[in-house]
Structure formats: structure tokens, C-alpha cells
């Protein structure tokens, strides 16, 4: 299958600043690509170049085989772009707003009503069809903007931080919506700096820093490649773990175990567990935080069970054992650390 998106040596300079440095990337149809980077890394610049809103200084990109520099008009009708900052028109109803964009995409009048209903259903805005756009909440506006992006049924979606500034609930709604779009077979590039958000529906990610794509590829591949190691989170029954009633402001403020107070005494069992973990092959560092043990695992993949086995064999009362969920964040920090500081 030919790649749906092919970025070739894409470069953008603003006067004295190189915002994007010779980017190369290929995405297959149906790929969901998570584009991650700190502020000012060049995500928006890259996406805008793909959306034909900016001309690259050098290089080009092909979307569905069409050159974005030479045929911007053709590209515009196959991509849907959702900017990071956008507004809506005042004094206009939700359906009129969508009708306007449908007309602007030259969709015949007869088909529009059906399409508007479809995208409203998809984005769960059906009840708001007759409402005025400015009366919508932020999350609804974001979904409306996505609905607008979908009216011309684009093959490729370029979403620049679609969940920025939303509360957790609205964020989950957007996430569900993206999953639905994935199931519709669209190729999506979605940028964000909130990493866990991307982890569960992206199949590829790329990390950009200072305009350079530091790493890109299959999510799991990258997690393995970069981390090869991850953090094990272990909770054991600890007699000294303070009861909720014993918690005071001071104990919360002083997190370090050395500084006296109720929560600081480490039980013998805990000490034993820490010592045991340190002696395990593949564990290079053990920390204690909030009554949990964090063991940094760098050993063979899929051999973590040996550690659990060792703990149990040594009569340590393990309450829970798992890997920390923020893998992407971890990778991100690891990869970008050297450059940021």
C-alpha cells in the first residue's frame, strides 16, 4: 500500500530560526500518529505545512500522493484540519455553521442536510442542532470544530491539540470520538503534550524537540526501544502506613521518611522488601513514595514476574504489583531531557 502521508525533508525557517528541521516521516492509511513535543517544538508548524497553510522553506510532503506545495487546493479537499486555537462565528446556529462549511467544501445542497445530521450524531451534538454556536461550552465547541472538520469526509485528519484546555470529562469524550474516527479508517495526525492521552489509541508516535524528530515509529516498538525498562509499582501491606484519620497537614507536607512523624517509620517488612528488590537481577533503583515502592526495571522484557515471585517467596505481603501507566511520559522525559536542560 502506498503511504498516505509522506513527509520529505520538510524544513521551515522563520528569519533566523529553524522551526522544523528536515523532517522525514511516512504513515500508512489508517495510522494514528501521535505527535509529541514540548512547547515551541514545531508541532503546529509541521501540521500547518501539511495543511498547506504554510509554505515549507525546503522539502515537501505528499498526502495521498498529492504534493502539498504544488497542489494546495487538491490537498485541502482531502484533509480536515483542526487548528490549536480557533474561534467560531457569532450569531449563527450550529446547523448553519456546519451548512456554511459544507457549502464551502462545495458539497451539493441536496446532500448537506444528511451530512450535517451524520456528523452531529458522530460528535454527539444532535440536541444542540438549533442552538447558537456561542452558547456552547468549550468542549462542545471543540467537538463542533471536529464535526466541521468532518463534513467533507476527509481521508486525513490533522488535529492540533484537539483536547487542549478541556476538563477530564470532555477530554475523554474527545478521545472516544477519536477512537471512533480510527475505526472509520481515517489517517490521523494528532498533536499533544499530554502523553497518556495518546497512548491508548495511537499506533505510532513521534517525538519532536527543537524542530527535530528525535524518534518515531510504532508505539510499542518505541516503548521497548527507548525504555527497555520501566517502573514497577509495588504496594505491600505496611503496618506503619498511616490511617486516614492520622493524616495531618504536616505529614503531607513532609514526604520524606526521615523527618519524624507518623508515616516516616519504615517497617521491617518494608526494609526487607527494599533490600530484596535491590538484589533482584534487572532492578537498578528502588524508591519509596506514598507507601508504594517504585522499582526501576531494566531487565529482560516479560520477566517481571520473577520479581513478584521472589517477593512472595520471601513472605512479603504484596497488595498490588504492576507497571506504571505513564510510559509515554517517561519516554518523553527520557528522550528530551538532555536537550531541554
Amino acid at each position, binding site marked *: 500500500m502506498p503511504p498516505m502521508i509522506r513527509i520529505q525533508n520538510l524544513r521551515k525557517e*522563520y*528569519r*533566523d*530560526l*529553524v522551526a522544523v528541521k528536515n523532517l522525514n516521516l511516512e504513515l500508512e492509511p489508517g495510522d494514528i500518529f501521535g505527535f509529541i513535543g514540548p*512547547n*515551541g517544538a514545531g508541532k503546529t508548524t509541521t501540521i*500547518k505545512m501539511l*495543511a*498547506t*497553510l*504554510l*509554505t515549507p522553506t525546503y522539502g515537501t510532503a505528499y498526502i495521498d500522493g498529492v504534493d502539498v506545495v504544488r497542489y*494546495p*487546493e487538491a490537498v*485541502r*479537499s482531502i*484533509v480536515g*484540519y483542526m*487548528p490549536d*486555537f*480557533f*474561534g*467560531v*462565528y*457569532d*450569531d*449563527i446556529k450550529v446547523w*448553519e455553521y456546519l451548512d*456554511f*462549511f459544507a*457549502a*464551502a*467544501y*462545495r458539497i451539493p*445542497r441536496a446532500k448537506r442536510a444528511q451530512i450535517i445530521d451524520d456528523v452531529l450524531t458522530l460528535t454527539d451534538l444532535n440536541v444542540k442542532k438549533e442552538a447558537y454556536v456561542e452558547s456552547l461550552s468549550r468542549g462542545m465547541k471543540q467537538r463542533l*470544530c471536529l464535526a*466541521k472538520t468532518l463534513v467533507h469526509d476527509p481521508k486525513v485528519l490533522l488535529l492540533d491539540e484537539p483536547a487542549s484546555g478541556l476538563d477530564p470529562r470532555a477530554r475523554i469524550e474527545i478521545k472516544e470520538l477519536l477512537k471512533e474516527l480510527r475505526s472509520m479508517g481515517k489517517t490521523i495526525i494528532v498533536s499533544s503534550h499530554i502523553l497518556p492521552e495518546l497512548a491508548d489509541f495511537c499506533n505510532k508516535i513521534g517525538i519532536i524537540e*527543537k524542530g527535530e524528530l528525535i524518534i518515531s515509529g510504532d508505539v510499542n516498538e518505541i516503548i521497548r526501544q527507548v525504555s527497555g525498562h520501566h517502573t514497577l509499582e509495588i504496594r505491600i501491606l505496611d503496618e506503619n502506613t498511616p490511617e486516614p484519620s492520622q493524616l495531618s497537614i504536616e505529614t503531607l507536607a513532609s514526604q520524606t521518611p526521615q523527618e519524624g512523624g507518623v508515616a516516616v517509620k519504615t517497617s521491617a517488612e518494608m526494609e526487607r522488601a527494599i533490600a530484596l528488590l535491590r538484589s533482584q537481577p534487572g532492578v537498578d533503583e528502588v524508591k519509596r513514595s506514598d507507601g508504594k515502592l517504585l522499582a526501576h526495571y531494566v531487565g529482560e522484557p516479560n520477566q517481571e514476574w520473577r520479581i513478584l515471585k521472589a517477593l512472595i517467596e520471601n513472605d512479603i505481603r504484596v497488595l498490588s504489583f504492576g507497571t506504571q501507566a505513564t510510559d509515554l511520559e517517561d519516554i518523553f522525559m527520557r528522550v528530551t531531557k538532555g536537550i531541554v536542560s
Partner: protein
Amino acid sequence: MTAMIRLPVLKFENPVLTKEMRVRMRGSRAYWVLSGYLTFLSLILFFNYYHWWENALNAGGFSSGSRIGQEIFQWISITQAFLVVFITPAITSGAITIEKEQRTLEMLAMTRLSRSSIILGKILSSVGFMALLILSSLPLTSICFFLGGVSPEQVVSSYLLMLCGCLLTASIGIVWSTLSSSSSLSIAATYATLLIALPVMAILVAIMQEARIAIVSDWMWILLGLYGLTGLERESSLENDFLNVWNLSHFYGMSLPGWLVTLIVYGLTSLLLCLVAAAHLELHPERSAPRLRLATLSLLIVHCFFLFGARFSIYGSLAPYDFSMYAASSPLPVLLVYPMLFILLMTPVFGSGILSRKSLARPGRYLLQGWTPVGWRAGTLASGLPFLLLLMLLSLLMYGGSFLLIGQPGAFISGAPQIPGKPASVITAIPHLQILREIVFTMTAAILGIYSVSFTLSLILRNRWAVMVLMYVLLLALLIAPAVSYASLGSLSGILSGSELLIHLFYLNPLASVAETIFRASPPDYKQYLLFGSYPSWMITTVCYLFITGFAIILSVAVVVLRRKYETPVPDMPETLKRETL
């Protein structure tokens, strides 16, 4: 398959227009504007009528109804014209900036709408709304019909003129709207343009009349829009034979009344302004540069075509009036003054811009590239000079071509084509080629000088807008100051004092020098007050501008060298995040 008849007209749809109209007509706002407008007009009408009634009672009898009919009609027309000119820009000058402020322009740009259809939708929706206002006054105007004295042609033409004026101001608003980053800036700029343009043009007209460049000043009246109105009245009087060229006669063989000429000029100017706006809406500025230049070029061509066409038609076969007096008193090269003024006014636009670090690293190469197709396509600052020179060449070519069009190419040498049916002796020959040569020298030096000053300012200020504003202030000062100084001159004393020394700035006004060259038979009055008054002005002007050019070149070389030496290189990645503005 069923046979389908597709009417292209029915398929026409402009989504922007639909949306704007929907929003504009929503709620009670439109209703209140409409009733306010009509109330205002009715009050004007009422006072007029009352005034007439009272006068009539005092005089002990009614004067003819037709006079009052005409008077009321004029009042309504003028009031409406003013309302239109001042309401329309309020609607359009925010049309694009609001999309920028609301951050909706990018999404609009991503649709399949073309740039011009966005502009068209915005313009049509505001003009459409204004048309509604204007047409709603028709019942009031019809009162004038009852009173008599007003012809249907007058009514139709005055309404058409109003609509066209509305279109023109709407396009001025939309151009500013595409240029500015905020609505307030755009509205201020639009009204400033209207408020400044009218008096400045009037002053220019006065100056030109001073310099006896009648044809140019008449052209300016047309641009001012006043001509259309005067044309209505002058239709019958034959006092000014020049106006009749425009009024009734054979403009390129067609008979065009004055208001129609104004209509055409307004329409074309609006069209070009809209093209400029569409070009500026283009997200890739390097692509809009050639279009902008093409628009400028065609603006010049259209204006030259009308201007030259009107004058040269005197020498055609159809002239219904005797223009020999006029033709004898006004030498032909005077036609070139208008294009030259146009080019001078365009110089700051093409002489200002941003110079990138890369181009400054190799200035020689950059400047040379301005003369190649690559530089032209990119619309670099360096390509501004060749473009301006091309404009001059083009206007000269069109001028020369006009001699061919009237079938008297030989007259190019004498500058005195024959008027059919008149003896050749009516128009005396002039040293035509010499005049043209002097005009070319003066103008080339002036363009060089002004361009290089503006280039140097661009280097120093690094802000295109600041440069343009500064240059226009300078240019207007140069054009106006000496004339003002001359007007304030004590009539008899030959000695100049203080502010009157400004009169020497006449030397820096290339148009004054050009005019002097053209009317060489009778040198202007102010000449006696000038230093070097015995030399022809064009020589001094040329020398002055060459000096200015040299000075500017030295200054810019110094700036470049100093900057290279002392400026610390900008860090690779500034911390501040700059947002992309369209």
C-alpha cells in the same frame, strides 16, 4: 436517465454571502438601522419642504414646483451619498479582520472557497445591505417626481452612482481589512484613507491647476467622485469644452455621459482593489506578489487608456466640438503627468520591505536577482526598482502607441497631431522628443532617489509599515509644502523670509519640474523666487535626486557594514513564541 436542465445561474452559490446575510438580517438590528436611515432622510426632506413652504408664504406665492423638486432631490442624493460613504466602510473594514481576531480565517482558508469568492461574498453582503438601505429611500425620492423637475435618467444615474460609491468604499474597507491585523486598526485606516484622500486629492487638484495641468486635475475630480454629480448638472451647459470630451462626446467612438464614465472608473477601481484584497488574503505571500504587481500594472494601463483615449480622440474624426483652442493651449505630454504621479505614489510600496539576513549576507547578488525572473516572482524588495522603471516605460509606450492609434505616427516628432478638418497651423509644433527626454531623465532620477531613500529606511527601521508611512508623509510634504509656501508668499517683495524658503522644495517635486518642461513657453511664476531660477528646473531636480541616491547608497552600505560588525548574532531559538499571523 432523466434529462436535466442545469442553469449555471441557479447553481451559483456563495457560502460566505449566504452566511453573512443570514447573520446580518437576524434579529432587530437590521430593522433599526433601516428605520434610523429612513427617519434621517425624512427629516431632511421635511425641513427642505418646510423651508420652501415658508418661503413661498412669505413671498406671497408658490414658486415653481420643479425647482423645489430638484432641490429636494439634490439634498436627498447628497445626504445619501454621505451616509453611504460613511456607513459602508464600517461594515467592510472589519470583514476580514474579524475572521483573524476570531481565529476563523485559517479554517475558512482550508475550504475549497477561492480567495476571490471570499472577498466577493464579503463585498456583496455589505453592498447588498447598503443597496437595501439606498433603495428603501426610493419612495421618498418619488416625491420629487410629483414636484417635477427631475428626470428619470437623473434618478437612475444618481442611484447607480451611489451604489458604485458604496462599492468603492466597501473595497477600500476590505483592502485595509486584509492588510491589518485588528479591526480597530482597519477601521481607523479606512476612515483615515477617506478623510485624508478627499482633501489631499483636492489639494493636489489645486496644485495641478496652479501648474495648469488641467487634464490631470479633471481626472482627479472623476476619482473624487464629484465629477459624476457635476456631470449631471453640466449636461446641458457647454461652458467648459474639456468637460464635454467626457460628457457627451465620442469617447473612443462611444457616447458616454459623465456619470457613466465615473461609474466605469469606480467599478474598475473597485475591481482592482478587490483583486488586491484577494491577493493579500493568499496565505503564501510569495505567490501573491506577482498578482499584486499585475494588479498595479493593470491599474496603470486602465487609467492610461482612459486618460490618453479621451485626449487623443480629439484628433480622431468624430469630434463634435471645436477643440483646437484647448489642444493648442495644452501640449500633449501633459498626459504623462498622471502616470508619473501614480508611479511616484507607488514607489514607497515597492521600495519598502523586509530584507532577510540571507540577502544581506550577499547584497550584490540580492540586488542583481531583483532584475531576474526569480526576484520578480518572489516580489523581493530588490525587484521593486525594475518594476517601477517598467511602469514608467509602459506608460511611455502607451503614450507613443496612441499616436499610432490615431494614425498619425509622424506627429510623434512634432508632438502636434492634426485635428481633422482644421489647418495644420492651428497647433504649433513643440520640441516633443526633447520634452520626453527631459521627463524621462527627471522621473528616472526621482524614482531612483525616492526608491533608494525608502530602501535605506527599510534597512534601518526594519518595519515595512513604518517605512511606508514615513515615505508618504515625506512625499506629500514635498508635493504640498512648496505650494503652500508659494501661496503664502508676500506678493511683491522679491526677498524670501523664513518659511518661504520652503519654496525651494519645488526642485524636489518632480511633477513641478515635468510641468515646467512641458509648458516651457511660459515658465511658472514661482520660478523668479528660486535660486538658480535661470536654469531649467528638470536639470536641478535630476541632479538633486542623483545626490540623494548617492547619499542613500552610502548610508545603506554604512548600515550594513556597521550591523555586521556590532550586531551579535541572534540565538538559534528565541524563547518568545511568535504566533503566525495571516
